[in-house]
């Protein structure tokens, strides 16, 4: 297969296994490209992409912009803080105004779950979801699996535990879909208040004891505690969270095997993981960031190849 089955990347849920394989194979090539002395290819010279971020983002936005520039696409970016959205313009109007400037593709982050899907139904452009509320963050899900594949050879058959704030996390859902599609086993671990009620219906198991979860897994993906999304207190104190669900070097060394530590960033050092864990050989956190550019190049390239002239 040399083409994606979809015209938009709205969520991992809408992809097939073959799509993920194709994205990974293409990302392998782009990873080689971004390690060349000249890290740029001219494929997307005639494609214009708008990055619309209604929510704050540093790494995702930079990563998308870099991916687009490495592919030679023309890029415009804006954050909602400086836009007419503040003046009361609707989402469809905002995007259609951008599209009338001859934009071919939109990368959007939005606080509302389903915003990217809604947009794909209402405007004529290829849409990439860069995070919609607590729903999905598909490129993060892909780059996490890609990093596991890179470190451990394959994703199939691996045991992955996602630790922390599952309730507010779009990274968790995209990871669960992506990992299961590739044949990995997924467990979630965190305080009961931060585990969604019906999470088992997705086919994942729940473990409230961190040590047990770590002893079971090959990979631990440590999510950030999203204080900004918490309207009430979900755990007594940050200190208590760190004691119960934070990983430090002593805990890691006391396990009978070497597990891979991941984190989607930004890290609250000393909360989810301590500094010595984040900077250890077992951590692939910075590989995740590098792979993010390659994965996003692959997704953009493959979607752009479906935009007919």
């Amino acid at each position: 297969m040399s083409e994606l089955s979809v015209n938009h990347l709205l969520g991992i849920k809408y992809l097939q296994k073959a799509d993920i394989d194709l994205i990974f194979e293409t990302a392998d090539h782009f990873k080689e490209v971004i390690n060349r002395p000249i890290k740029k290819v001219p494929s997307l010279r005639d494609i214009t992409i708008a990055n619309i971020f209604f929510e704050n983002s540093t790494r995702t936005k930079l990563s998308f912009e870099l991916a687009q520039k490495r592919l030679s696409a023309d890029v415009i970016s804006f954050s909602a803080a400086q836009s007419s959205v503040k003046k009361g313009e609707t989402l469809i109007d905002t995007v259609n105004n951008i599209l009338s400037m001859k934009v071919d593709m939109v990368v959007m982050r939005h606080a509302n779950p389903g915003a990217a899907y809604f947009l794909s139904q209402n405007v004529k452009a290829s849409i990439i979801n860069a995070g919609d509320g607590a729903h999905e963050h598909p490129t993060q899900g892909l780059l996490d699996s890609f990093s596991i594949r890179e470190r451990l050879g394959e994703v199939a058959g691996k045991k992955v535990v996602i630790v922390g704030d599952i309730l507010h996390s779009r990274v968790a859902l995209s990871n669960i879909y992506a990992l299961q599609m590739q044949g990995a086993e997924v467990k979630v671990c965190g305080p009961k208040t931060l585990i969604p009620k019906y999470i088992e219906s997705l086919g994942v198991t729940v473990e409230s004891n961190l040590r047990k979860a770590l002893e079971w897994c090959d990979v631990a993906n440590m999510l950030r505690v999203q204080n900004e999304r918490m309207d009430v207190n979900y755990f007594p104190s940050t200190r208590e969270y760190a004691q119960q669900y934070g990983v430090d070097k002593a805990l890691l060394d006391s396990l009978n095997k070497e597990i891979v530590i991941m984190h989607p960033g930004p890290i609250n050092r000393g909360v989810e993981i301590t500094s010595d864990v984040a900077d250890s050989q077992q951590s692939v956190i910075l590989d995740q960031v590098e792979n993010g550019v390659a994965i996003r190049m692959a997704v953009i390239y493959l979607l752009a190849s479906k935009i007919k002239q």
Partner: protein
Amino acid sequence: MLTSKEVNIILHRLACQLIENHLDFSNSVLIGIQPRGVSLAARLKTILETEYHIPPIPLGFLDITFFRDDFRRGETLEANKTQIDFLVEDKKVVFIDDVLFTGRSIRAALTAIQSFGRPSEIELLVLIDRRFSRHLPIQPDYRGRQVDVINDEKVKVCWKEKEGEDAVYLI
């Protein structure tokens, strides 16, 4: 069009012509264009090193998919591996491909190689040169066999490593 014996004779002649220009290859590198130029490049390297006792020559493979000028204009193409573990800065580069047709792949390769440095010169070696079908002003420096083929005919080059025999067919 060509039998195994003829292919073998041509490869040896091409190897000798390369030696004529590059002597001991101390400042030269071979680049096989993906996907079909790779077997030819590897074969020539073997002949040069084993039969003509040239010291090991750097060999790289260059994929041109992301540099093509027909992105979104035709069928989707799958990329192949680029493997160039050296810089081509100030080197004499020899592009190697099986069939030269429109010249567009070579145009893409000329752009793609710039990502690896500025070569002092670039030459082109092809096994089959399809005359009269060029879209661009590109000609080979070393050619195995020149053929006149009408546009809807295809030239297929087979290699022992891949297809089980060395031969060239007109389909």
